[in-house]
């Protein structure tokens, strides 16, 4: 297991190098330059040139990339934003916790809502207890998060005056973003859990458990549930990674200073250090989440755990 984790962590090095080079190239290919983006339509060419020079953007592509990666690797410095002149690492440090809280709370919400109802729906297949939740799940998973967000704002901020609709002043500010991102995900989790559970409860070992006298609750929650969870965990991990950098509309709506809006603003102003730094951090987090998902398989599924133990024994 340790060897597996170390190998996966080492894989981060080529991932970071590849991602950074790709992003550098893509940003370079976008028409325009940071000087003209920052100075606007009426800027004089000499001012644009002066600003590009000040930002180091006039240097050749590979020199800029080598400088950037040299600083990133040896000094742990992701450069300074062209627009704000602040260190990108500091900016990410301010924003990452917000994105982590929003993404993890939304995933947690989707799991505690989607998984139990999905299990119930599978166990009570083709009854009202199945049809109502699956219908609702279809409805929820087809709604964009920002739309749910606006509805929540209208109800809880405007009508009931309970929650401040913007900012991160206290923990209640995270409730509406959590629900607006969590509800569509809960719908998807419900459907995944249901289909995975339906497949699992028909397996021989569940039938055997029942035949050996296990109660229905034990057969479902102890024997079937653990195996049915594997695809659910995979989807939850994927969704978590996506929400870290991809909840842009929700961040914008609720005025949350998250990683997604940070990267998008950087792309619009051709702020190379912001975009590259933001995406490197995003890629590392995504890779770590996927690693955690893979490792969690071993805890959930005894067959996978046994494989690791057998390999260790063989070694």
């Amino acid at each position, binding site marked *: 297991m340790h060897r597996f984790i170390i190998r996966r962590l080492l894989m981060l090095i080529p991932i970071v190098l590849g991602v950074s080079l790709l992003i550098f190239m893509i940003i370079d290919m976008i028409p325009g330059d940071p000087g003209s983006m920052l100075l*606007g339509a009426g800027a004089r060419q000499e001012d644009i040139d002066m600003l590009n020079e000040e930002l180091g953007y006039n240097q050749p592509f590979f020199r800029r990339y080598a400088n950037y990666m040299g600083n990133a690797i040896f000094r742990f410095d992701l450069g300074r934003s062209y627009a704000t002149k602040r260190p990108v690492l500091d900016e990410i440090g301010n924003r990452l916790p917000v994105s982590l809280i929003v993404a993890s709370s939304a995933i947690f919400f989707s799991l505690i809502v989607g998984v139990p109802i999905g299990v119930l729906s599978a166990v009570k297949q083709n009854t009202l207890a199945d049809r109502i939740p699956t219908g609702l799940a279809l409805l929820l998973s087809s709604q964009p998060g920002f739309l749910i967000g606006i509805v929540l704002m209208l109800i809880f901020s405007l009508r009931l005056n309970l929650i401040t609709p913007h900012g991160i002043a206290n923990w*209640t500010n995270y409730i509406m973003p959590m629900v607006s991102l969590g509800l569509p995900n809960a719908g998807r989790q419900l459907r995944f859990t249901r289909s995975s559970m339906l497949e699992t409860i028909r397996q021989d070992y569940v039938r055997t458990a029942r035949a050996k006298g296990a109660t229905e609750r034990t057969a479902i929650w102890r024997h079937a549930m653990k195996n049915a969870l594997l695809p659910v965990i995979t989807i939850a991990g994927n969704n978590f990674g996506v929400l870290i950098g991809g909840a842009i509309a929700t961040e914008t*709506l609720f*005025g949350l*200073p998250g990683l997604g809006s940070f990267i998008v603003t950087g792309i619009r102003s051709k702020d190379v250090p912001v975009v590259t730094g933001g995406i490197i951090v995003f890629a590392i987090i995504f890779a770590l989440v996927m690693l955690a998902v893979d490792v969690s398989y071993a805890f959930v599924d005894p067959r996978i755990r046994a494989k690791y133990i057998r390999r260790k024994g063989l070694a």
Partner: protein
Amino acid sequence: MKKINVTVALLLVFSMFFAACGQDGTGDVSSEDRTLRLSTRAPMTTSDPHGTINIEDLMVMRQVYEPLFRQNELTGEFVPLVATDHAISGDGTVYTFTIRQGVKFHNGDELTAEDVEFSLQRAMNSPRVRSYMAGVADVRAEGDGTVIVTLDQPNAALLSNLAFVFIVNKREVTEQGEEFGTKLNLAGTGPFRFTYLVHDIEWRLEAFPDYHQGEADIKNIHYVPIADLAAALIAFESGSLDWLIAPIANWDGLVANPAFNTELSIGNHISYAVLNHLNPPLDDINVRLAIAHAIDKQAMNLIAFDGLAENANFMVHPDKNVGAPSEGVTYNLDLDKAREYLAKSAYPNGTHVGTINVSAGGYFERMAQVLQDNLMAIGLTSDINRMDSASNLERGRNQQFDIMTTGFSPNGDFDSWKMYCHTDFRGTFYNQYEGDVFDWEHMNYLWAKGVSVADVAEREAIYRELNDWIMGTATQLPIFHRAGAYVWTAALNVPVNYPNYPIVYEWSWK
């Protein structure tokens, strides 16, 4: 028993939740301590007033820092701030500014002429704001109370430009060095000073007790960034904000609500169509003139701005900008004339005029839709290409467009339109006048002549000729001056709303 425990636990959780919820209550707070809550559309990028031209940043900067003079956005008059007076030499190349005595910076230092000299020189070297210092050859402090600005050549727009150059404390800026702008500073002389600054999240200001015009009535300001207009409106209506530039679509509902104060104000901004005269069939002047007479400004105003904007005959609003003419060549809806011009063109039976490029999401997109419909009325077809604003800007500069619907804000002087016309400015590449088609050297000459004359009436005469020259090309077609829809809470007294930059110092609690 178990059920009772669960019920008690749930009640406890809900009571904690509701205790933690709720708005920033202000009902029982005395007006002396009440915090004014404002929002901006984007986070503040910097606290360095020489490091930004971003309008959202400047909305905050204007409360904290001061230029020598502020130009009243509604009347065009100059209001003395750091300077009390100025004198211009006979040849118009030397400006002598008298510096106000007894002005203190937020850090307690007294303002000196050296600070002014330092600030203006710093602006000259900052690529972000040095365009405001165009033509300035030298800045020199003379004694404690005078600063002399020497120009290469006369520049009648200098005062309007200097209204965007803020004075900062030399010691504070020097001490913070490279970090200046990335953190809180006390380098301003304005009525409010920074007390808390977390970029991207919130920034707080408090009234500066030693402000040279007297302490502000509003004691505290709390800014938060809310990018989404609908979210900002919900925040205002739910009591989280005290003042807002509201979405036009909600204007009638806001006016009808007795709990709010409202004001509609025509801004110093022009929304217009650009025709690329280099691309056929728009290289034919008769096609361009046909389009100019086919545009239904009122329909665009209705569709894009609910009819609340002011239809425009001139690119630069005559009442809000020094030197802007109020007479000259104009175009208005006249389909017969449009068809006449088209009949005279190489395309009498109509043609495809190409693509209307537009930034997605805003009202420019709705203008483009109406324009497409207007063109159809005289037999011209077109496509609309929606894109993000950065791509649209770049395509415009690189001549990768046929027609654009866009806008710009003059800075209080007719000369600011120069950025979109004069061949020295990259912005001119929306319309690349340089070449064989137009007598662009004459246009450049008129720009130079207009700014070299101090007398306003004389400037207006020159600018009328210039305006007619540019309008005669039918390449930039003014549509409307947009309106600002201001709404604020009943407890707040706002005597006047300026189009771009609110002056909170003039506000008070009732």
